């Protein structure tokens, strides 16, 4: 095939899907980040050659909350082929980290009520009202003194 290496071509295609969370490529890229591995090292750890790693990365990722999760895991594991339990472990680890990330983001958002424009509005209104009252008081005083 005119200089094209099918293994490299599929790996390159899989890499293009790393930002798409519906593909296993995204899960594998996140797992590599967590574990500090490169793709070759992860393929080695999974006991599969690069061509099968590309095949795994190009699969759609099973949803751990879906009722057919185990069936989908089995289908991917048979197709690649690879160890089912290892695949489940990788998906669960990545999902846990994503959940943790989301929890941290939510917590940080809740901790800064001042950043809420509505809250700031209330505080500003309260402060303005107070200052206006002060001005009124002074004016009254000035009027009274006259």
């Amino acid at each position, binding site marked *: 095939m*005119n200089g094209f290496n099918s293994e490299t*071509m599929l790996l390159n295609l899989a890499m293009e899907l790393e930002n798409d969370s519906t593909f296993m490529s995204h899960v594998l890229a996140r797992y590599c980040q967590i574990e500090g591995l490169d793709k070759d090292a992860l393929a080695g750890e999974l006991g599969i050659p690069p061509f099968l790693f590309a095949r795994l990365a190009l699969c759609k990722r*099973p949803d751990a909350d879906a009722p057919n999760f185990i069936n989908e895991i089995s*289908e*991917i594991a048979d197709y690649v082929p690879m160890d089912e339990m290892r695949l489940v472990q990788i998906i669960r680890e990545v999902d846990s980290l994503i959940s943790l990330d989301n929890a941290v983001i939510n917590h940080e958002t809740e901790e800064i009520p001042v950043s809420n424009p509505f809250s700031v509005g209330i505080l500003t209104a309260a402060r303005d009202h107070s200052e206006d009252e002060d001005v009124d008081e002074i004016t009254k005083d000035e009027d009274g003194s006259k």
Partner: protein
Amino acid sequence: MSAPKEFNEKAAALHKDLLAGRPTASAQIAELLQPRILRGLSRKFSNVNDEHLIQTAVNDALLYYLKSPNNFDAKRSSLLNFIWQRANSNLLNLLKENAKQNKFVELDEVQTVYSNEANQNETIEQFLVDEEQNCQTYKQLYALLPDPIDRAILELMMNGERETVLFAVVLGISEESPEAQCARVKKHKDRIKKFIQRHRAEIIR
């Protein structure tokens, strides 16, 4: 881009699987279509030496489909043709961009591709390549060409081989000058092409 019926049926079934949510369908489609489209496109744009450009065009077309498979309407074309058309269009756009930037490809080279397509010999080669996986055609041609060297040359042509060097090896003229090799390879290929042209009707039948 044409393909054997079984190939298109397999691609259509995988498309249905992808829509149905089967997790391996996307990988199977990529494995099935990517090599064929890469091969076809690099053959069609044989004057484009930048393989990265062809790869980008093909991968972008596949990504477009894999991310939104609903964009493909099975009633209008085969999946292979849908992705092929998109990859073809992607490559033309990339070539135009590069020609504007005067980077990798001279516009003249792109135009040469179109003039090649109009060439009768090219049409015969395309016919051979399109029928590459059609065993029946191959068997018929094989039967019509008794000479083993002719058969080997035919096989290279059916594989879309364009480099003179392999044909020269088959013809046993590797020691000759490059010019002489080119001339003899061309003469041999032209003879086979003319032979196929003469017998085309009975091959297609």
